[in-house]
């Protein structure tokens, strides 16, 4: 087989900036911790850099023509996360992963490797979208099966049944179901978009979608939501609902769908507030966490204190007290970053997420077919909304939910799913570029 190299200089240049950022973060943390002016162990940052460079190399070697900003953005966000986890590691319990006693940063590094591998497999391996598009009902069945399996055989962590034990590791199938759902909705909407856009029913001023065509999707979506709510995973429910409405809006251009959806959401949220004590508790904590600052409001209050300690320029890496927040490495890693890197650092992180979102939407805009466009919108929205929901939860803008900050929070399933989504975006972007070049009569050999 002949290698078709595609140089990706922009990507490489930006990745090289990581060579400064990540080791520097480790060194600064080490100095703050040890109180000695020395570099400290640099195995992890070097491994992380190598991982990113290997990913870059494989993309080059495989002649990948996908977006060049994606990998550096994700690499930087993930790098900041790794620096933060390494900083938090001494304050957290070691984990048992693959039979080894590893701290959270080391475990996360393993997940990063798995995630990048998954990303490359999808980005390079997914030659066309047939596999996704034509088997959407199969995918939906797998998704439902996974959910049902978790609900029946999974185990609870903090009152939510989200985990299944796979021997050496435990995974959260919810993260993968999110992708499956996005694939299914994209496939369904792409097939039925014309019908959905034509309004057939009018009730007063509102044009109602032709229900029969929405039904299969609504049914599946409803089933997923039901299971998710049953599993007490409110953040995931909110996220899935947001993704669904967004994709519906992009496919049809109908604000009325979104409005109806939001009304349904408000009504549902109110019902849940009245019916489920755990939901009511969450909302009460959100409204006034200081009312029970030593009890139920402990975690969010500690999070707010961390934000305040950070101030404009932060306490400096290793100099704050982020470990005073329970579950800081998963739920509150954003607050930890805001504490030690300050408003300036947290803004930078948000800006990178925003850039990632814009880059993902750009892939959607340029995509050659509706399925690809909707898929790109779906995964981008998923990443964007998930960041917004957990960050807004940290900032007490919305009730706190236990979802992860993509690429940053500790957690294998989340890392794996997030990188898979980047893989999908890269794959779509690659095919778009190739198609465009083919149209202009530029073959790979003519470059």
């Amino acid at each position, binding site marked *: 087989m002949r290698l078709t190299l595609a140089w990706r200089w922009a990507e490489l240049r930006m990745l090289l900036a990581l060579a400064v950022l990540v080791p520097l973060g480790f060194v600064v943390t080490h100095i703050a911790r040890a109180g000695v002016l020395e570099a400290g162990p640099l195995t992890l940052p070097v491994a992380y850099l190598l991982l990113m460079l290997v990913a870059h190399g494989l993309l080059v070697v495989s002649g990948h023509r996908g977006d060049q900003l994606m990998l550096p953005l994700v690499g930087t966000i993930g790098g900041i996360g790794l620096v933060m986890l390494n900083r938090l590691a001494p304050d957290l319990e070691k984990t048992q992963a693959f039979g080894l006693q590893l701290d959270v940063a080391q475990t996360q590094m393993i997940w990063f490797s798995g995630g990048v591998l998954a990303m490359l497999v999808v980005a390079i391996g997914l030659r066309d979208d047939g596999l996704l598009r034509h088997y959407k009902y199969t995918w939906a069945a797998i998704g439902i099966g996974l959910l049902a399996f978790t609900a029946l055989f999974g185990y609870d962590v903090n009152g939510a049944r989200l985990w299944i034990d796979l021997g050496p590791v435990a995974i959260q199938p919810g993260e993968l179901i999110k992708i499956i759902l996005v694939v299914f909705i994209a496939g369904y909407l792409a097939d039925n978009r014309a019908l959905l856009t034509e309004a057939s029913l009018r009730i007063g001023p509102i044009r109602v979608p032709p229900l029969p065509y929405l039904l299969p999707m609504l049914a599946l979506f409803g089933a997923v939501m039901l299971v998710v709510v049953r599993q007490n995973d409110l953040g995931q429910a909110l996220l899935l609902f947001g993704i669904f409405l967004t994709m519906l809006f*992009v496919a049809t251009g109908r604000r009325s769908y979104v409005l109806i959806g939001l009304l349904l959401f408000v009504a549902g949220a109110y019902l849940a507030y009245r019916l489920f004590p755990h939901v009511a508790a969450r909302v009460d904590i959100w409204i006034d966490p200081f009312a029970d600052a030593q009890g139920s409001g402990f975690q969010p209050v500690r999070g707010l*204190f961390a934000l*305040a300690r*950070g101030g404009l320029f*932060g306490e400096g890496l290793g100099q704050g007290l982020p470990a005073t927040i329970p579950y800081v490495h998963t739920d509150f890693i954003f607050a930890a970053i805001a504490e030690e890197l300050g408003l300036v650092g947290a803004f930078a992180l948000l800006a990178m997420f925003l850039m990632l*979102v814009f880059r993902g939407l750009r892939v959607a805009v340029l995509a050659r077919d509706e399925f690809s466009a909707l898929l790109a919108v779906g995964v981008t929205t998923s990443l964007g909304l998930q960041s917004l929901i957990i960050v*807004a939860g940290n*900032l*007490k803008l919305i009730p706190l939910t236990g979802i992860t900050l993509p690429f940053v929070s500790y957690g294998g399933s989340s890392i794996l799913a997030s990188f898979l989504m980047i893989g999908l975006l890269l794959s779509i972007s690659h095919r778009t570029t190739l198609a465009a070049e083919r149209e202009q009569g530029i073959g790979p050999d003519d470059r």
Partner: protein
Amino acid sequence: MIATNVRRLAVYLLLAFVVVSGGLGWWQVVDAGALNARAENPQVIAARRSALRGTIFDANGQVLASSQVLDGISRRTYTDPAFSHVIGYASLRFGTTGLERVYDDVLTGRADPNPLRDLINDIMARRTEPKDLTLTIDRRLQDFAAAQLGASAGAIVAIDPRTGEVLAMTSTPTFDATPISGVPADAGPPMDAITARDGDPLVDRARQGRYVPGSIMKIFTAASALDAGVITPQTTFPDQPDQESSGFVVDGFTIREHDLGNLQPDLWPLSPALQVSSNIFFAHVGLDLGAERFLQYARRFGFCETTGIGTGSRALPVSASYVSAPGDDGCGPISDDVELASAAFGQAQVTVTPVQMSLLAATIANGGVMPGLTAVRDVRAHATDPSAGPADTILERTSTGGGSRVISAAAAQATRSAMVDAVEGELGTLYAGQGAVKLYGIGDAATAGKTGTAQRAEGQAPHSWFIGFAPAQEGGDPAIAIAVLVEGGGSGSGLAAPIGGRVMAEWLRLTSGG
């Protein structure tokens, strides 16, 4: 079509990120100060538990308070109970009081006195070192003053009238602040023991005690009336001799003179009237001054509002002193002439703090300019070995702002000369004479002063007061102004005046190098 919708979506998501960024700015900048100060903030708790507090030195570099961190808990040791009220305590269990509270952020190193360095430290995320305080109070004088009060409840405030530096400020009964400032779990019983004792040992009588002043208030009335031109040192009131014996009827209420003993009433001008402490004379002066001007001068002298020793956020609070019933904005209106006439000689609704009265004496001593008070001389870098004295690096020198003119120099001079007579004059020696520093071995200095015997409710012994300053002879430069209060101590001449004289003499002796 899809592309258009995606662009719209991009705008919505951008807006969502903007909102989230706004929330971030709210917590990290706008509301951060309030959150950082909350007691349940782990940073505040942790910092307090383990933070080494700076040392507090007296004016001569003697250690008054120092900290040690043992087993991760910061323990504070106070060397001298005479300072317990002014320094206060820094307890992990009971909070922080006194200068410990006012300078908390400096002592713990959370703030730098210099705002620019503070900002730089913040930007550099530099952990600031604890800082040390040097007081203006001289431990020798403080201990001397506390010993003079002995077992009596009372307060002594001595200040340098030229600079406003507090030289001694002590309140009795006092308490040992060390046991309540150590390990939080062990601090309960000692605190219970302190609060169970009689006489409210935790109250700083110098700053927080409000007492009827009695005759020392006549200094205020005289100075104000002289400044307003209502009287001159020669002014007399023709009816006075008669009223001395039969009483001065104001609006149907008879104001009586105190027992003048063998003295025959006379047409006394200011000096003899102050020497014999004539109530009738000062009732006349007060009425001529009028309620409005009486209140006006009271405010200029610092009555009628909460004040402080120090400036701005670094002020050790001093309770308001009142010349009338407390009202919405400080002193309420004076209801009638009876009240005004009585207030003019320090009765009626007048209630004052010892600090305020020391300030009154200092203002006269300082030629009519009221000095700004301070008890802290400077903030210094932390001395690693406190027993070797304070570090050389002075980070901030306290400035008192130079003071403000309250009355004219001429009015102050006339008041001063009457006050010297009140101690050293032929009649005055019978009353405030025991306040003279000459009696206590300072031969060449005259003393200005005034006693007060503040009448209280039937059956309660009067408060004994003395205010004064020395050296007060013509051309002398007063180096100390003082207010002495002994609760229920009886006559001012009997108890407070000799204490005042001894403390001032001690200071003149200490500063003359002898």
